[in-house]
């Protein structure tokens, strides 16, 4: 039994494993498969200011060891989320990390205000991997300056003790530059990576399969890209907490991210394959650490860089 407790930018978690935003809704459905209070945290689907219908179907394509999705951030909007979805998690004593998404900086600020005033929220994840309507629809996190603008704007509204993470896209020339920008702008850490932009074409019609034409690639297929991103950012900013996500399927995969420098990890697409995966990953991470004779997950953190444990 290795010590899995994790101190993540000031919050204490029983273990470093979470669900990834958009892959666990608001937690309730997964309650059928495991006790959501046992998991490090539940990251909820990115919520927007208003109800949003998302993109037309088809919204997914299975790809080799992965999938594409173009959900288009369908959701009930912040009011309904706070009134109906969040309380389920809070009442049970789970640790909700609330993910927010805006189309403008003001929307991010407004969402932040609403979320931080709701009791029971453990952390805020600011999904800046979404299009900025004020800047030709370019994704905020594709540009260090735009990314920083969002984080700077929400920073004053996030109270002490509530960590705020920026969710980054890998579709950039240098993710280190973006991470540095959000760190400087006051993010308490970064969650990486969001999906890679991809697409698939129907073999019969020869037209794009997804209603949204392009979509986000996720799953084990992208794990090497995610591990690399975490490794690079940890190398550049060793004190900046990173939550690693991208293709985690097993405890050994989770440990790979921890060794690369992640303080916590998220399980996303693999939930669709195995709805019990998040708690299975916790158990497997524990046995992997035992197997290697490493006493705690903290000891393994950053190992790949040649630090402690090596």
């Amino acid at each position, binding site marked *: 039994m290795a010590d899995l407790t994790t101190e993540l930018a000031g919050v204490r978690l029983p273990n470093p494993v979470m669900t990834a935003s*958009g892959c666990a809704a608001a937690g309730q459905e997964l309650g*059928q498969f495991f006790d959501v209070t046992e998991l490090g945290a539940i990251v909820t689907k990115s919520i927007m200011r*208003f109800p949003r219908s998302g993109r037309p179907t088809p919204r997914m394509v299975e790809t080799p060891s992965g999938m594409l999705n173009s*959900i288009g951030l369908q959701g009930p909007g912040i009011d309904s989320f706070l009134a109906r979805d969040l309380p389920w998690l809070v009442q049970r004593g789970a640790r909700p990390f609330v993910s927010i998404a805006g189309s403008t900086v003001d929307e991010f600020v407004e969402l932040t205000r609403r979320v931080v005033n709701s009791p029971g929220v453990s952390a805020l994840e600011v999904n800046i991997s979404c299009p900025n309507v004020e800047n030709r629809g370019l994704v905020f996190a594709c540009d260090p300056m735009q990314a920083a603008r969002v984080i700077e704007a929400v920073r004053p509204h996030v109270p002490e003790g509530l960590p705020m993470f920026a969710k980054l896209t890998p579709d950039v020339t240098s993710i280190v530059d973006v991470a540095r920008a959000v760190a400087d702008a006051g993010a308490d850490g970064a969650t990486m990576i969001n999906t890679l932009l991809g697409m698939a074409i129907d073999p019969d019609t020869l037209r794009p399969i997804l209603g949204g034409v392009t979509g986000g690639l996720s799953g084990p297929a992208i794990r090497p890209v995610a591990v690399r991103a975490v490794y690079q950012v940890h190398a550049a900013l060793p004190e900046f907490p990173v939550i690693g996500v991208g293709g985690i399927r097993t405890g050994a995969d989770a440990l790979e991210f921890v060794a690369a420098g992640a303080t916590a990890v998220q399980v996303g697409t693999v939930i669709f394959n*195995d709805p019990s995966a998040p*708690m299975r990953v916790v158990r497997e991470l524990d046995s992997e650490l035992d197997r290697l004779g490493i006493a705690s997950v903290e000891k393994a953190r950053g190992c790949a860089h040649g630090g402690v444990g090596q």
Partner: protein
Amino acid sequence: MTSGTGAVQGGALQVKGEVVSLKPVGDYLHLTMTAPGVAERMRPGNFVALSVGGEQSAMLLRRAFSIYRAQASTRGGTVEIVFAEHGKGTRWMTRLAPKDTIDVVGPLGRPFALPKQPVACTLVGGGYGMAPMFSLAERLRARGCSVHMLIGAASESRLFGALEASRAASSVRITTEDGSMGHRGRVTDVLPDLIDKTGSDVVYACGPMPMLQAVSAVADEHGAHSQCAVEETMACGVGVCMTCVLPVRGDDGVIRMVRSCVEGPVFRGDRVLWDDVGTIPDGTLGAANRGARNERSDARDHGRSAP
């Protein structure tokens, strides 16, 4: 066998099943597997989601199948499905052999709503869409309903359950598009007459989307309720991913993109905006703009679509 101590009670289970048998029936395969707990909870219209391809599979997503039969047992109940070889996942399934293990999640989805009164019911199944109709028939008969079955397919080999139907229903009608068995044509050629003659109050349907749409329209016209089990592409099957949505009008008159895996797969036929499946119809709650299908994100304009 079941995962997740401390998990919320009721609802779906994830269990390691074992293949009991796999037998061809016409163009389909009939798979029986153990799935302890799933059988016991199953209600007609529920489905199971199976993982495919084994341990090192490149296929990440589960495949959804209507439950054909479920048998509770002290040695661990069994669940049966009927499937067509379609793509790579179902091709893998055709090679399953007794004793192979298979990871089963279920029972999933909202079941068919049952009438409170002992009314007449018509059950329409297209191809393997007949699979869920037999357990439904049983429940309906147990409530004193009279059950009429209408079975359609492209050709005889794609009819499922024609023989069993004669035991399960008071009357059986068959249609094939090529005329190889029964009436040459589609179920909707026969349905109006059938509703009228049997005085059916409810039509239950499962099959391809165009069939469901047509059945729903016929039922409407003939004063019957319809309960349609839809088939939308599903990534998770358990309600967490939002891939399986279609436009449905709620009790409040509002159109919403609802998840067919948890709010369906069975919907009232008159509530589904059949013409608009695959689009975000105007007026849908949260629709950013009109005719979203025509405003597909253009990869020219921006780097990525929102996930």
